């Protein structure tokens, strides 16, 4: 049982590392959103593993998963809203061309 928990958490750690790399290395806004999605997916894996192998009788763990899924949907909706505005005003969603946002 503990081995399964370690496997699931190890996969979560790997997904988190890949997501951080993607979110920091990509120049395209949509690709950055993909990196953040992977980070949140790592959180989902961890939450389900904690629920299943530590406290399967308490449903708060599954409730947290639903909240993280809601966060994923919100992040994508707002991210694409910003991307559309950016594309309409500048013709590109490349972050290299968005240095003026630094202020």
């Amino acid at each position, binding site marked *: 049982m503990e081995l399964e928990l370690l496997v699931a958490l190890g996969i979560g750690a790997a997904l988190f590392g890949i997501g951080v790399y993607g979110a920091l290395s990509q120049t395209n806004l949509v690709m950055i959103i993909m*990196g953040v999605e992977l980070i949140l997916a790592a959180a989902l894996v961890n939450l389900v593993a904690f629920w299943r192998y530590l406290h399967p009788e308490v449903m708060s763990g599954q409730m947290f998963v639903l909240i993280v899924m809601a966060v994923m949907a919100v992040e994508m909706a707002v991210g694409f809203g910003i991307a559309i505005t950016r594309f309409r005003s500048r013709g590109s969603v490349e972050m290299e061309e968005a240095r003026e946002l630094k202020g």
Partner: protein
Amino acid sequence: MTASVFFLAFFGIAAVWFGIVVFRTHSMVRSALALLFAQTAIGAMFLVMQAEFLGVLQIMMMATEMSVMAIFMVMFMMDPGGLGAMEMTHQKRLSVWAGAIGLVGAAAIVGLADWGLAGSGGQVPSAGRQVELLGLELLGRSMFVFESAGLTILTAMVAATMVAITPPLKGGKNGT
């Protein structure tokens, strides 16, 4: 090694592999499809962990979400097929280091933490009973959190629509 460990590792490695492919390919559409496969593999992991409702929800939600993402990729990218092999990365060394530190840090916590309670919890409820208990949880003790999440999604939908329909800035590249 039990069957559940094998399938958990199999789908987990598939998720990690497709996660790597997302940032390795030059084609944006392939990136979106690779992320879809990664999310589907994660959904399969949920099914292996007996969280049937969440597994099916994850697969259905992510299939829709990644399809939308692929459409946006085709809309926004000059070269969505990746035929020009454009360079789309920056600060590579910093990113690799940050990702590696994140991975090693999380793996260290996983390895060093005391998981003595693992497996000592109660029995996993059946799939039908899980949905019933989750419904009671969401509409009982966690109702405030659940309703807050719903309100947040509604606010985000309105905010995203309002941001997207804002007229282009005067003086911008495509502005009037």
